């Protein structure tokens, strides 16, 4: 009976951790996606400084959540995010034509990360 109670407790703990992980990743990734949209809006409206500030904020936000993600998500995906987020600021600053493709890629990686953690029929099977 003790073993069954222990197993039940472990399963509940794992369930709570999974829900926490799912919610955290989902929230942070949505924020990143909103941020990429905002950067592009500011950039296309001519507010380069605003876009730079937003890019710096995006990078800082990513750095903040990365350590939590490292415990929950495969490192390969995180390295991709690292690579793209660290480039956005410099692309805005240098008025690069690659900015749009990089922002799209970032959004795509973020959506992939979110889909991998959210239990949906497509991600389960």
């Amino acid at each position, binding site marked *: 009976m003790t073993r069954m109670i222990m*197993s039940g407790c*472990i*399963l509940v703990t*794992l369930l709570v*951790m999974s829900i926490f992980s799912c919610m955290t990743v989902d929230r942070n990734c949505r924020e990143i996606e909103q941020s990429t949209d905002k950067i592009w809006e500011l950039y296309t409206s001519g507010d380069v400084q605003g876009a730079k500030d937003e890019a710096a904020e995006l990078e800082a936000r990513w750095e903040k959540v990365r350590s939590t993600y490292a*415990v929950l998500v*495969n490192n390969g995906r995180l390295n991709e995010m690292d690579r793209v987020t660290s480039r956005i600021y410099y692309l805005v600053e240098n008025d690069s034509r690659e900015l749009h493709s990089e922002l799209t890629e970032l959004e795509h990686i973020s959506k992939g990360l979110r889909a991998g953690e959210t239990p949906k029929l497509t991600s389960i099977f």
Partner: protein
Amino acid sequence: MFVVLIRSLILYILVIFAVRLMGKRQLGELQPSELVITILISNIATLPIEDVNIPVIVGVTPILSLVCFEVLMSGLTLKFPKFRRLVSGSPKIIIHNGVVDQKVMNELRFSVDDLVSAMRGKDVFDISEVQFAIVETNGSFSVMKKREDDVPKLSDIGVYAQNSDPPQLIVADGKMITPAIEFLGSSPEAVRRVISGIGMKLEQVMIMTADSDGKCYIARKNGGSPYIIEGANL
């Protein structure tokens, strides 16, 4: 390298914990579901050890959840016999009244060689001696010999024998094993008294066993013949 070492240690502890959580039954006899879990755990545990890109929690979660599912499942099978039959199957009688059931053999995909080999494993070399044989749900084979071919029991030849528990190991390498002494209903002082009664000290004793009738076996550390004491006052 150091990361891999630490990860290996964590997963080693986790797998030990997992096997302990599944219980002693796991170590001796595997039911179909337990076999599946054991194979899965051993495979999953290697993934985060080999690949440092995979977080440990990604390896820990399936191992713990599989073991917990298994424990809960075994609890349910204990409570619901129909569910147990569904999960573990039921024992199959393969020889009844000395007749081999061909249908059951086909059902179990048991060849004649398998049958003869399983019987040899039970020290039966002549199939005509078997009255009844059954294949258990964990795949083990149980045999009952015909009465005329079986070893006679003491009661069969009219000999009276008293039942008693086996001897307990109460001193090992000069150290007393308190739970075993308590199991015998004795005390460390009484054990010490028996040892000093033969002119020895506790530290000189390598093995000491005793049963409920007070029969003691005492082996010395420095070799020599062991002491066998009948009816010691323990």
